[in-house]
């Protein structure tokens, strides 16, 4: 808890100046609930106009009809039937949409598993092994700075390394491990997963670090004193207490990868199909109801995943 000295430490030098003007204290006060509305209202309006209403439009338009040129505001299930075209006829083989979602889920799982592994140990190192606050802040900052720079640049940054004549290939050729350049390094599923891990491990590190930093160090000492091994302490004390962070990080990573179309587009050489990519393709073809139908499907699947995960932890309590 704060000591009174800390409180004074925080206090501003302007504090005294503010107190000199007592006259204003008598001026009319706004009622507290009105003040809250004025403070929170503008942000609520932005979410209403640019998030909630647009979502409603996505659902409405997904049930509209369309031709080659325009939206036709009449009820139709065509957006959905076009999307699931051939799904029953082709059984037991998977139709296009089924295959696409299967591939997206596979990418999602790979990226989730890798970012969780890296994120957990990076956060663990920062939270438990870095003792000085200054170092902790410096190293956290080091992990955060790339997040403030452009994603596309961080994607194309892999080209000089992974390309046909890139550093990795020329290294492999020189050491004689391969005779001709390895093709699957770039514009492949491998490079998509690599880039997604590169871009989004940050979203795993931050919440896990936040959970870990709140763990009372004496609990860990108590575990050691009671004779637990390092591994037992990790599994029975640290992981359960870091669970909220793990779940929140997982939700971030999974929803980002499920909806991603840019990384998959750029790093997959525009050749890999994915859930987000379908929406983009439909929009480019001006088939808005079909795009909206796909958005609704993606939204439902993402929502199901989040509901499943938030069963494990109460998100609101953790923030």
């Amino acid at each position, binding site marked *: 808890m704060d000591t009174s000295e800390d409180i004074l430490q925080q206090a501003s030098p302007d504090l005294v100046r503010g107190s000199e003007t007592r006259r204003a204290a008598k001026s009319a006060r706004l009622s507290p609930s009105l003040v809250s509305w004025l403070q929170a209202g503008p942000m609520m309006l932005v979410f209403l106009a640019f998030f909630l209403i647009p979502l409603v439009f996505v659902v409405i338009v997904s049930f509209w009809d369309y031709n080659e040129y325009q939206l036709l505001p009449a009820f139709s299930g065509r957006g959905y039937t076009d999307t699931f075209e051939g799904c029953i006829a082709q059984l037991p083989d998977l139709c296009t949409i089924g295959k696409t979602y299967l591939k997206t889920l596979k990418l999602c799982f790979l990226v989730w598993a890798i970012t969780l592994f890296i994120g957990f140990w990076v956060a663990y190192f920062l939270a438990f092994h870095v003792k000085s606050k200054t170092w902790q802040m410096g190293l956290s900052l080091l*992990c955060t700075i790339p997040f403030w720079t452009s994603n596309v640049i961080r994607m194309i940054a892999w080209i000089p390394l992974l390309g046909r004549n890139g550093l990795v290939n020329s290294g492999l050729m020189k050491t004689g491990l391969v005779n001709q350049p390895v093709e699957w390094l770039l514009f492949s599923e491998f490079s998509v997963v690599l880039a997604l891990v590169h871009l989004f491990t940050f979203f795993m590190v931050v919440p896990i670090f936040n959970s870990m930093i709140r763990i009372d160090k004496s609990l860990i000492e108590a575990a050691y004193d009671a004779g637990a091994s390092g591994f037992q302490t990790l599994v029975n004390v640290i992981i359960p207490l870091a669970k909220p962070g793990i779940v929140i990080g997982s939700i971030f990573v999974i929803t980002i990868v499920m*909806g991603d179309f840019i990384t998959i587009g750029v790093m997959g050489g525009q050749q890999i199909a994915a859930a987000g990519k379908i929406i983009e393709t439909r929009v480019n073809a001006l088939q808005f109801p079909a795009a909206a139908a796909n958005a609704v499907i993606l939204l439902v699947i993402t929502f199901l995943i989040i509901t499943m995960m938030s069963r494990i932890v109460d998100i609101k309590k953790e923030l």
Partner: protein
Amino acid sequence: MKEGRPRSFYLLAIFFAAYVLFLYGPMIAIYVLSFQGPQGGLTFPMNGVSTYWLTKLFQGTGIVDLGASFRRSLLLGVIVMAVTVVLSVAAGMAFRRKFKMQSILFYSAIASLIVPSIITSLGISLEFRIIDDLIKAHWNENFETSMGLLTSGLGAHLTWTLPFGLLIMFAIFNRFDPRLEEAARDLGATPWQTFRYVVLPIILPSVIGIGLFGFTLSWDELARSSQAIGAVNTLPLDLQGLTTTVTNPDIYALGTIISAVSFAVITLALGTIHMLNKRQAAKGSDAGKGLV
């Protein structure tokens, strides 16, 4: 606890260092490659060192008007930053009391953060298309579009920056001592004076952090802009377009320029935060100085 570092420390330190190398290595590679000689290609080795590609970029590559996109992105970034700071601080203050739409606003912000960007972007574009159609049908047949950088584009970026701003405000007020405000009130300060002279100076370093998030997130934003920005392009959109067509290092040069702006903003913000923290530590307390 034992003295000295356990072996796991060294293992994890190596792991951490490898992660940092993984984060920065590729980026540094393209910064270096943007100084490629005029004959150089997209990969190492360097074919001489020059500022040829960077200069060429400023003269215009002829394909797209990068200067205009640069100015547009900058303008949008600054506006997004200002709006994000003001709305986040205001809403953050509101969340310190209970109010009616509290949980609606909270869940809207969280949902806005995790609903896939392409869906938000598509929704905004549909919303504006329908507005356009209504205007054309009822008021003005020659109406072009209400979509644009500072209408749908600004809104799309705000749905991405505001949740971050709000979450940072939660973190700030989690460790804010309300007794400071009580003290100010007891001394007769009005709510506004309390905010202006007590709360704001204390939270200012973190508020600058929100501004930093606001600008950089907007400056690099791509997924939400893709459908909602209207006819014009922002810099990241131009860059993404170039990835499919360009075969020489000017794409790296553009990447270097965009990153340079990001790094300038990051340095400026972190420098200011550091300065404010030092000032607060030096002047914030008059404890031990006796009665004045």
